[in-house]
C-alpha cells in the first residue's frame, strides 16, 4: 500500500480530522517533485524563523491566529490534492511565492509588534485595511505597507477552519447577528480579543469592499492608538464622474502618511513601481488567454490565491512574484506547444463565482478529484488587475484608485449589477460548460441578485450553473460536507453523472484544520 497508486481516496486520511496517514502517491517523478517542493517550503519556513526568532516565537505563543499557521503544510497538501505533471509544477511555483511573501510580511509584522517591546520597526509600517493593495504607499521608500486583516482572518481561515469561529463567537457575544458578513465579524472578533499585533505608525481606514467592512472598521480602529485617516472610495466606481474624487482620496493618503511619518513621497519611485505592477497584470492577462486552451496547467485552488496574494501584498513591489508568473507562463507555453493535457481527470471546464467558503479553500481540488470538474479560475482572479497609466502622476494616482475599486470582492459586488453578471462572459471566453455559483449566505451584494442570476442561466443553455451555499468563514453553519452534498446532488440529479472517486462523496472532516 506504501506506493500504491492513489486516487485521493479517503482511506488515506484519518476520519473527521482529515489528517493524512501518508502523503499522496502521484507516480514516482511527481511524488519526488512534490517532496522536493516540500523541502523548499521547509527552507522558506526556516528562513522565516531566522528573521526574528524570538519575536516570531513570542507571536506564536501570543496569537491564536498565528498558531493556525502551523497548519501551512497540511493546507499546501490539500491545495495540491490530485495535481500531477505541469499543473503540480505551476501550483508549487506559485505556492512558493505565496509562502515567501506571507512569511516575509509575517516576520515584519512580528518585528514591528510593540506588544513585545518598543521597536523602531513598528514606526516603519503603515497599516491599511483589507482589500486595499500596497500600490499607493509604494512611493514611500522607507515604509512598509502592512495589510491588517489578511493574516488574522483570510489566510488564517484557509489554513484552519476552527480559527474564525473563535473570533465570530466573541463578537456575537456582543450582539452582532449571525447574518452579518463573517469576514468582517471575524476581524472585529480579533480586535475585541485584542489579537491584532500592535504595530504601525499610522492607519488607513477604508470602506473596502462593502457595507459590513465599512462598519467593522468603526470597531477595529478602537484597538489602535495611532493616527488614522479615513480614505473611502466611491461605490459607483464604474461612473467616470467618480474618478476625480477617488483620486483625491489617494492623495489624502499620501499627504497624511507623509505628515505623520515625516517621510517624503518619491513620485518617480511610485511610477516605476506601477510599471512593475503593470508587468504583473500583463502577465496575468497572458495567463487568461492560456486558460482558454485545452492544455492549460492553471486551475484548482492555488492560482486564485496567487492572484489575491499578489493583489494584497505585491502591487509591483515583489520581484519574485513576477518571476513566479513568468515561470508559470513558461510551463503553460510548453504545455500548449506540446499539447499536454494537464488535467487528465477533467470532464468539465468551470469557473467559480461569488464569495467562496474560505474554510473549504481546497474545494476546487475536491471538485476535480471527485467529479472531474476542472476549475479554471475564480471570481477573484478577475479583480484588481487594472493597468495603471504611468505617463503622469495624476493619471497614475487615479489608476491606483481604479485598481482598488476593481479589487477583491469589490469589482463584482458593487458599482452596478452588470459586474456580477460578468461570469457568463468569462465562462464563454474560457470555454467552460459549467459555472459553480457560490452563495455566501451573508453576502448582500450577491444575494440581492439571486433570482436574476438564476434566470440568466436560461439565456446560456450550453453552460450549466450549479449553486453551492457557504457561510464564508463559519463551517458550523454550512460545513464542507454540506457543500459537497450540494454538489453531489447536482451532479447526480441534474448532470446524471457518476463520481470519479465515490469515497470522496460524503465524509466528515469537520474536526480538522
Amino acid at each position: 500500500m506504501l506506493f500504491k497508486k492513489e486516487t485521493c481516496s479517503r482511506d488515506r486520511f484519518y476520519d473527521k480530522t482529515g489528517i493524512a496517514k501518508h502523503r499522496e502517491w502521484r507516480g514516482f517523478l511527481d511524488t519526488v517533485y512534490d517532496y522536493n517542493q516540500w523541502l523548499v517550503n521547509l527552507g522558506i519556513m526556516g528562513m522565516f524563523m531566522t528573521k526574528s526568532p524570538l519575536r516570531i516565537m513570542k507571536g506564536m505563543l501570543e496569537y491564536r491566529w498565528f498558531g493556525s499557521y502551523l497548519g501551512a503544510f497540511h493546507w499546501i497538501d490539500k491545495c495540491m490534492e490530485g495535481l500531477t505533471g505541469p499543473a503540480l509544477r505551476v501550483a508549487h511555483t506559485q505556492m512558493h511565492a505565496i509562502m515567501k511573501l506571507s512569511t516575509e510580511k509575517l516576520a515584519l509584522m512580528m518585528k514591528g509588534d510593540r506588544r513585545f517591546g518598543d521597536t523602531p520597526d513598528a514606526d516603519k509600517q503603515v497599516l491599511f485595511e483589507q482589500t486595499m493593495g500596497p500600490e499607493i504607499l509604494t512611493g514611500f521608500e522607507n515604509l512598509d505597507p502592512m495589510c491588517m486583516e489578511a493574516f488574522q482572518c483570510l489566510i488564517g481561515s484557509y489554513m484552519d477552519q476552527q480559527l474564525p469561529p473563535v473570533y465570530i463567537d466573541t463578537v456575537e457575544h456582543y450582539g452582532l447577528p449571525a447574518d452579518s458578513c463573517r469576514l468582517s465579524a471575524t476581524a472585529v472578533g480579533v480586535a475585541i480579543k485584542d489579537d491584532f499585533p500592535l504595530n504601525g505608525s499610522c492607519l488607513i481606514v477604508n470602506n473596502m469592499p462593502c457595507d459590513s467592512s465599512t462598519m467593522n472598521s468603526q470597531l477595529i480602529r478602537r484597538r489602535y492608538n495611532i493616527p488614522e485617516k479615513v480614505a473611502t472610495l466611491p461605490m459607483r466606481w464604474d461612473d467616470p464622474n467618480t474618478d476625480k474624487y477617488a483620486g483625491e482620496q489617494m492623495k489624502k493618503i499620501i499627504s497624511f502618511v507623509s505628515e505623520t511619518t515625516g517621510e517624503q513621497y518619491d513620485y518617480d519611485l511610485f511610477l516605476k513601481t506601477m510599471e512593475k505592477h503593470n508587468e504583473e497584470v500583463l502577465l496575468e492577462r497572458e495567463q487568461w488567454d492560456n486558460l482558454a486552451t485545452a492544455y492549460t496547467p492553471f486551475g484548482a485552488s492555488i492560482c486564485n490565491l496567487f492572484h489575491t496574494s499578489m493583489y494584497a501584498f505585491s502591487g509591483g513591489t515583489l520581484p519574485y512574484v513576477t518571476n513566479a508568473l513568468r515561470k508559470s507562463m513558461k510551463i503553460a507555453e510548453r504545455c500548449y506547444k506540446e499539447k499536454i493535457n494537464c488535467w487528465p481527470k477533467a470532464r468539465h471546464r468551470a469557473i467559480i463565482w461569488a464569495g467562496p467558503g474560505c474554510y473549504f479553500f481546497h474545494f476546487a481540488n475536491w471538485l476535480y478529484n471527485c467529479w472531474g470538474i476542472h476549475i479554471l479560475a475564480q471570481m477573484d482572479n478577475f479583480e484588481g488587475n487594472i493597468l495603471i497609466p504611468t505617463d503622469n502622476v495624476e493619471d497614475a494616482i487615479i489608476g491606483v484608485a481604479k485598481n482598488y475599486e476593481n479589487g477583491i470582492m469589490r469589482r463584482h459586488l458593487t458599482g452596478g449589477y452588470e459586474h456580477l453578471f460578468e461570469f457568463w462572459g468569462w465562462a464563454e471566453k474560457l470555454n467552460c460548460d459549467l459555472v459553480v455559483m457560490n452563495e455566501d449566505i451573508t453576502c448582500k451584494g450577491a444575494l440581492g441578485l439571486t433570482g436574476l442570476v438564476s434566470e440568466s442561466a436560461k439565456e446560456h443553455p450550453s453552460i450549466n450553473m450549479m449553486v453551492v451555499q457557504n457561510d464564508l468563514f463559519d463551517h458550523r453553519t454550512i460545513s464542507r460536507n454540506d457543500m459537497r452534498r450540494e454538489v453531489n446532488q447536482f451532479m447526480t440529479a441534474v448532470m446524471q453523472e457518476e463520481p470519479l472517486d465515490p469515497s470522496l462523496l460524503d465524509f466528515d472532516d469537520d474536526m480538522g484544520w
Partner: protein
Amino acid sequence: MKDLKHLIYFENLLQEANNELVKKACADGKKALGYNCYFLPEVLLNLPGCFSTRLRAPNTGAIDVGTYYMSSKICSFTRSILERGIEGGYDYLSALFSAETCQMMHRGHEHFHLLNLVKKENPQFFMSMMDVPFVTDELALSYYAEQLKLYVLDKLEEVYGVDTSEQALKKAIELHNELSAVITEIGDLRKLDNPPITGYEFHVIQLVSQVCPHELILPYLKETLAELKKRKADSKPNFRVRIVLTGSEIDDPEFIKLVEDCGALVVADRFCYGSLPSREQIVIKDGETALQAIARHYLTTSKCPRFMEKENGQARLDYLQELYREYKADGVLFEQMKFCEFWSYERVIGTHIFAQDTGIPTLGIEKEYTLVGAGQLRTRIQAFVESLEIKEIQGGKK
C-alpha cells in the same frame, strides 16, 4: 386625550403608496418622484412641477416574489419595496432616485431597471443612481453636490424639463422649511413632561409629510399643529417611561404603537423615516448656492452609521445623548432591521459602547419590516420598561 381631527385621514393616506393626495397631484400633472434614502434630498424632488414621495410598502403580506429575486437573506424592507414595485404599486412614479448607500436597497432599486418596472405604465419613467461619500469633509461636500447636480437636477431637467434654476431651488427650500417648521413644532411638544401627542401620532404625521405632496399636505399639518397647541394631555400620563427610538428603516406606525402599548412613550424618532434628523431648516450661508446649501445640510445633518470618521461616530452617539436629555427620556431603544449591515453594527455600538460611556439604559432589538414576531418584541420591550421603572424606583434616574 381627544382624538386629532385629521388622524384617521392621515392613517388612511398611509394605507397605500399611491394615496389620495398623490393621485390628486399626479392628476394635476405633477411628476411623482420616488426615493428611499435620506441622502436623496427630498427638497430637490420638490421643484416646480414635481413632488417627492418616499417609498413605503404598507400592508405588506407575503413577499414571495421579492424573496425569489433577492433571497430570504436580504432585509424585508427592500424585498417588500421590490414586491410592491412588481405588483405595480409604484406605477404612478415618474422617476426613482437612488443611491448606492446601502447595498441591499441599491440592489432592490436595480431590479426596477432590470425588470422594467413602472416603464410599462409610464415610458418616460427613469431611474437615477448616485454615489454618496462616507465622510463629511469639504472634498466630500463638493463631490456630493456634484453628484446631486448630475444625478438629480440634470436628469430632471433633461427628461421632464424641470426648472432647476437657483430661484427654483430657493423656492423649494422655502417650502421645505415651512413644512419642516410645522413638523418640528409638533415634534417639540414631545419634550413636555406630559406631551399632548403620542409617538404614534407623531410618526403618522411625520410619515404623511414624507409620502404626500408637500403643498397638499401642508394645510392639514398646519391645522393639526394649531389643534395640538390647544390639545390637553390626559391629567394622568398613560405611559410608564419615555424612550428615544433609534435605528434603521421604520415606516410602520404600528410598531410605534406596539412600543407604546408596552408603556414606553416614543419621544424622539432618530431613525430612517423619522424626523430627527430630516425636519431641520435648510439655511443658505453667505457665498453658498442653494445646491451647496442643500448638499451641506443633508451631508452634515445625516446621522447614518455609514459615515466613517471617528468624529462622525462620536457625533452620532452625542446626538443620541442630547436627544435623551432634551426629550427627558429614560432609555434608548436601538432597532435594527434584520439583515441590515449598518445597523447591526450600530446596535452593537449603541448597546455596549454608548451604554458604557453614558450610563444610559439601552435595549437592542432586531425586527422584520412587518410586525411578525410581535409577541417576542413586546416581551422584550416590556422587560426593558420594567427595568427602567425599577431603576427609577431605586433612584438611578438621571
